[in-house]
């Protein structure tokens, strides 16, 4: 008889049916994918980055495909937290998947305001975006300085009872300094990586391909970098890590789990395969069965160095 396999994970009080969530900005508000994934079954829906006021995003071309990846410079287009709370949350909270709201502030205080406004039923956790590379006030200033990142975490924690995740930028010299600073400040979880800053040039016109000149690189091209950063962070913090960066398949996700992530997020893959979040979870389940394992937690941090 086949053994039952458990994919459920508990991250700092946040219970997920599977360790596979969707990365902010790649899954809309979830409902866009209702034809392709069962929103009652996936690990969590992390919604598009939300700001205090509505934002219309960057002008010009916003995406460009690059080798094994893509650049984007959307610029945090979103309807604002009020519209999220009144129009969107009531619509998507009918699904069983926990809703995690990614927030971006233009000041430390604004992160606190957003965290408080989102401390409502239907929101399972908040993710602090301190690493958006595409807008001046999109948080990357907070994401590259350990003191600022810690201040953002403390401000958010003061204003919400929900678990607080902080999404780290890969665009730093030493990720472990950032990770230790945010753990000490009280972050419940760390998610990483956000996109790597990159650019592309059109040799016909001698102009940047992207309207915003540079943008965030994502997709399979960034996976080795993301994996290394997750592994480094896993060596220095005790709080759970949500690993992401170029995960397209279950094998990719398993690499992140072995490196020390307790859960993973699927991002760019959603654009290529709209049922990626479900497919990756199903693939992890199949892998566990094949290896005669019963619980996904048996993979976490089990990288063998010798």
């Amino acid at each position, binding site marked *: 008889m086949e053994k039952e396999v458990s994919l459920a994970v508990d991250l700092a009080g946040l219970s997920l049916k599977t360790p596979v969530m969707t990365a902010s*900005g*790649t*899954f*809309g508000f979830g409902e*866009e*994918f209702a*034809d*392709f994934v069962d929103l009652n079954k996936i690990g969590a829906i992390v919604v*598009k980055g939300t700001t205090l006021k*509505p934002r*219309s*995003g960057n002008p010009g*071309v*916003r*995406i*460009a*495909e690059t*080798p*094994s*990846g*893509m650049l*984007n410079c*959307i610029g945090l*287009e979103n*309807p604002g937290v009020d519209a999220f709370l009144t129009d969107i949350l009531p619509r998507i909270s009918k699904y069983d998947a926990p809703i995690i709201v990614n927030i971006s502030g233009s000041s430390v205080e604004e992160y606190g305001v957003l965290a408080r406004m989102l401390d409502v039923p239907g929101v399972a956790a908040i993710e602090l975006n301190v690493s958006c590379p595409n807008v001046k006030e999109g948080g990357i200033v907070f994401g590259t300085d350990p003191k600022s990142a810690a201040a953002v975490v403390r401000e958010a924690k003061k204003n919400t009872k929900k678990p607080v995740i902080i999404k780290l930028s890969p665009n730093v010299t030493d990720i472990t300094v950032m990770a230790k600073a945010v753990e000490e400040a009280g972050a419940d979880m760390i998610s990483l990586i956000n996109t790597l800053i990159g650019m592309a040039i059109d040799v016909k016109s001698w102009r940047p391909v992207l309207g915003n000149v540079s943008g965030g690189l994502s*997709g*399979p091209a960034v996976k080795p970098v993301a994996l290394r950063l997750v592994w480094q962070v896993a060596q220095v913090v005790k709080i759970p890590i949500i690993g992401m960066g170029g995960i397209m398949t279950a094998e990719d996700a398993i690499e992140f789990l072995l490196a020390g992530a307790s859960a993973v997020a699927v991002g*760019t893959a*959603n*654009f*290529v*395969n*709209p*049922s990626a979040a479900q497919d990756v979870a199903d693939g992890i389940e199949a892998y566990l069965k094949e290896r005669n394992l019963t619980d996904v937690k048996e993979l976490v941090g089990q990288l063998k160095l010798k």
Partner: protein
Amino acid sequence: MLKVALDAVVTAHEVLGPGVKKLVVLAKQIAQTAVPGQFVQLKIKDGEPLLRRPLSIASVDAAAGTVDLIYRVVGKGTQVLADVEKNAVVNCLGPLGKGFDLSCKSPLLVGGGMGIAPLLFLAERLETKPSILMGGRNQSEMFWTTLYKGKVKEIFVTTDDGSVGTKGFTVSLLPELLASGAYDRVVVCGPEIMMKAAAAIAATYQIPCQVSLEKHMACGLGACLSCTCESKDGKKRKKVCQDGPVFWAQEVF
């Protein structure tokens, strides 16, 4: 309407004109539910190109379950697509977006370049045969007239070099056609500069006008926000992939 992502066998792939090809895929669910103006997102093969490529639907055969996609080779993605052989399998996501309004009695379709492709599906579905005004650079680009034969009342052609039809831009012929009073709708698909000009001319004759926009996009499902555009109705931006690609001209211009 349910969107699907399905593996579709290529049943035909032929050259129509310089750099322009027609791909026919067996995608029954899409063929049976798609309406004119909608598009599909093709994942051409595993690996590169990574992202899907949006292609407008040029025709469907609901009985045979096939979808015709006409495209021009313009970049890396369409170059890879151009090399796909008959019987190969592509992944087809669709039908996507909102299509054309069909409640008109005597429409004039206006197409420029590859914008002529989705208008073919429209011509096939309209209750009364429309007329079409189409433009291109020269005679070699005007293979379209063959595809439209029997599906429209009249075909008006303009070319940049005058090698066939009237010499000039598509929109230069538009005022006199609209002045005749023969049309109650203008439907434009082509380069944005042409659509804007056509929409302005339609407005002066007070004829309702629809346009079909084209933008770079990743998901095609309204999630990535690569393709949003300003809307003229005040606040909310429009997603070309979801709220469009077809809009009333005054919504976006």
